[in-house]
């Protein structure tokens, strides 16, 4: 492969390494989304606001995250202020 072609492909030399990076990104993205949705929720954002920024429907965000976040904050009211506010 000449230098130009390599630049165009823009990936690592080893396809396995490139594909495994995708898997690592996917798994990390899931964790990051969960964390940022939770952060927004704790900051008092509504599902509708969170969904709008993520560019998906309110139902989609609720379905994916509500149960996990409820489980993490059992018995607490749905709207909370961040500590110290």
């Amino acid at each position: 492969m000449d230098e130009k072609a390599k630049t165009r492909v823009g990936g690592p030399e080893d396809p396995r390494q490139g594909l495994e990076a995708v898997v690592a990104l996917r798994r990390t993205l899931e964790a990051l989304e969960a964390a940022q949705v939770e952060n927004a929720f704790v900051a008092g954002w509504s599902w509708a606001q969170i969904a709008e920024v993520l560019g998906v429907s309110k139902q989609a965000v609720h379905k994916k995250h509500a149960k996990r976040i409820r489980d993490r904050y059992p018995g607490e009211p749905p709207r909370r202020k961040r500590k110290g506010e």
Partner: protein
Amino acid sequence: MIFNRFTKETRRCVVAAVEEARMLGHDSIGDEDLLLGILRADEGVAAEALSSLGVTLEGARKESEGMLSDALSSVGISLEELRREAGDAFEMRIPDYRKIPFSPKAKKVLERALREAGRLRDNHLGTEHVMLGILRDEDGKAVRMLARLGVSSEMLEDRLYELRGRAAS
């Protein structure tokens, strides 16, 4: 059905593998999760062989995360920085209500384990057969994880036979 021949130890390893995958945020059970499962269940010949070579559950988990971190670095992302940026809410763990499927690689490990049992003329499918099934995949994450821990496939395979021989006599 292949599961009928699993020993009690092998069943526990498989259950433990699912738990490890969940904890580490692996959205499918891979060959490396089966290795972690063997270490977590800590029963049977495979766990004994690994432990005798200095492989611990903690060490293996660390390498698993190290491999994740390396994969992210290869595309210019720092797991450390991401974690710091996202705060306490960031965790790789997959919620309990989400099902985690077995990957084709993990299924192949179990198929190979069955063949290894046949080759060794064993009626049961023990953890040693699962371990051999894992070791047959040179490109697998589990084999690379072991290499990072300073354990080669040959070393581990020899130890498995040694311990089996001792258990039989």
